[in-house]
């Protein structure tokens, strides 16, 4: 039973990170039907910002407790700026184009950002300081659920609840839902669609940055390439849950995390990815729009 619980919490931690990143994919897709392949790189840039800020703060002699908050805030602001700019440079000029063009532009952006960070920073792995707080009372259970895991799970839950409330009750949240439903109609009723799209990118990027700082601090290392695999996994999670659906992205992330953890624990870590992607294929066969996605009839 202990073993099961350990795997359960391990999967939950990993799934939370997937969910945080997947929200960005799903929101952008929900609004403009674009898969933002540069999203994984935003996560990576968030982690790098966290590293640089934490380095500066340590140098200035800040207390440890405040470091996580400041590093997270800076990472969120910086990544949000990146997300905003990317949309303006790479996607907005192509908004009227065929669907393939912004997709290719996204892949180009992803490769550009990877190489840019590699050149600007380094291609080596870098150590990341432990920013997450440690709880002494949890030390007894650290084999099952450590402090950093608990913080990651709690933060993700908090962020998800906050996002749901934000979308449900704020004016911009309503505008986002309206735009997702029908962009042309939203424009006609006076919603500034450009602003809504920018807001979506900013929010999605902020969530990815939170994920980046949390996971980097949890595993203690980063390099310029971490966004690629995390991005692919999060994208899988978004599709699994039904791309375009916010609860779907959360559910998809958790399910993917658990699948990987239990596949590793009870079968073999050799087959971790095999099980994860088999699950994706199966779900897409039986529910083509994902677990919580709505099927849309497309007019030709």
């Amino acid at each position, binding site marked *: 039973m202990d073993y099961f619980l350990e795997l359960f919490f391990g999967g939950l931690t990993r799934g939370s990170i997937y969910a945080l990143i997947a929200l960005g994919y799903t929101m952008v897709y929900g609004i403009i039907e674009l898969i933002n392949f540069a999203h994984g790189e935003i996560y990576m840039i968030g982690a790098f910002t966290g590293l640089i800020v934490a380095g500066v703060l340590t140098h200035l002699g800040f207390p440890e407790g405040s470091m996580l908050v400041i590093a997270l805030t800076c990472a969120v602001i910086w990544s949000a700026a990146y997300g905003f700019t990317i949309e303006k440079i790479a996607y907005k000029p192509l908004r009227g184009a065929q669907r393939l063009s912004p997709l290719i532009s996204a892949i180009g952006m992803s490769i550009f950002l990877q190489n840019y960070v590699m050149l600007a920073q380094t291609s080596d792995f870098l150590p990341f300081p432990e920013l997450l707080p440690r709880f002494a009372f949890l030390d007894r259970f*650290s084999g099952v659920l450590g402090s950093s895991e608990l913080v990651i799970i709690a933060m993700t839950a908090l962020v998800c609840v906050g996002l749901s409330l934000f979308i449900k009750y704020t004016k911009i949240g309503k505008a986002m839902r309206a735009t997702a439903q029908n962009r042309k109609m939203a424009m006609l009723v006076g919603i500034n669609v450009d602003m809504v799209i920018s807001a979506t990118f900013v929010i999605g990027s902020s969530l990815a940055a939170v994920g980046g700082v949390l996971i980097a601090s949890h595993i*203690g*290392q980063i*390099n310029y390439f971490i966004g690629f695999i995390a991005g692919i996994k999060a994208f899988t999670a978004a599709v699994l849950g039904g791309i375009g659906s916010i609860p779907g992205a959360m559910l998809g992330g958790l399910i993917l995390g658990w699948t990987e953890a239990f596949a590793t624990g009870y079968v073999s*870590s050799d087959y971790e990815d095999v099980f994860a992607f088999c699950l994706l294929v199966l779900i897409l066969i039986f529910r083509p729009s994902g677990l919580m996605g709505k099927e849309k009839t497309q007019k030709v």
Partner: protein
Amino acid sequence: MRGKLTLFALVFAMASLLLAGCGGEQKEEKKTEAPAAKKLVLGVAGAHSGDLASYGLPTVNAAKLVAAKFNAAGGVNGMTVEIAAQDDQCKPELATNAATKMVSDEVKIVLGHICSGATKAALPIYLESRIVCMSPSATNPPLTQSGEYPNFFRTIAPDDAQARLEVDFARKLGLTKVAVIHDKGDYGKGFASFCKDFADQEPGMEVVLFEGVTPGAVDYSAVVQKIKNSGAEGVIFGGYHPEASKIVSGMRKKGLEIPFMSDDGVKDETFIKVAGKYAEGVYATGPRDFSANALYKEAVEAHRKEFGTDPGPFFPEAYSAAIALLKAVENAKSMAYDDLIEALHSNYVETAVGKIKFDGRGDAEGVGFSVYQVQNGQYVEIK
């Protein structure tokens, strides 16, 4: 009309290819010539162009330096040493060409090849023509262990030597149950498989877990849980440092304080930098440090003087192999195949990688690996 043009183009292309071939050959002939009575030709084969040239060219430099050194001291048995280089780009099909060229030039001793695949392709040709071949870098174990190539020697330790040392060391630590983890890559998995085989053969030792992790995965907590659950008393990891540091820090955070051992992919300063305090106490095997050898220092100095740069990979091994080959000729006092083989097996020679002799299979005795441990933020050799 169109057909004729194509035909003409084809003929022209073939003719120019032929010409190019002839040109190349003429040039090579000028360089090597048939070995006259007063000349000893040392063949050097390996990747001298293409994307792996950086592995092959240091060998050519090493051969040139050693040849110059012997010539300055009056040559080998009164013969002047000459270098005949053949490029194989680490490709097996080009390696057979290179080998055939060596045969037709009547070269008796060959330094090379660089890559295991190319070496394997060339060896039957050398064996048939009774040519001695010594590689500074081909680490594939069966090249010597299969016993098929008595004409093959190497100055680098084979891949399995490291695994052997690892398992022996685990034994020394008193471990009876080990978990063997690898990164699914050619190098990591190969190393881990050897470790598993050796540990299985070892009486009283058991491999309780043998698994691969995906490099770059978000975290390895599940694998760490599995190690813990398996009851392993120690972990042997085959792969590189990014994965190793993630696994070891995950283990320590989960309160799993069992020994962690790894290979020379982890014996890297970056590992200590990234894993930080979790790196403390980690064991890693790595090539024995021979920078204190007088001949090694001399070779590096000579390289700087002659070529203006620091030597590249496998330079000390190549330098040592060239010395071993020429010394064998000196000791055998003949160029006959059997005499050369006999001389290589029976005489110790002083080289850049230490005092070496070749065992019955052709592996150099004395070169190899040591175990290191991270102590106070740096790797310390464990004697």
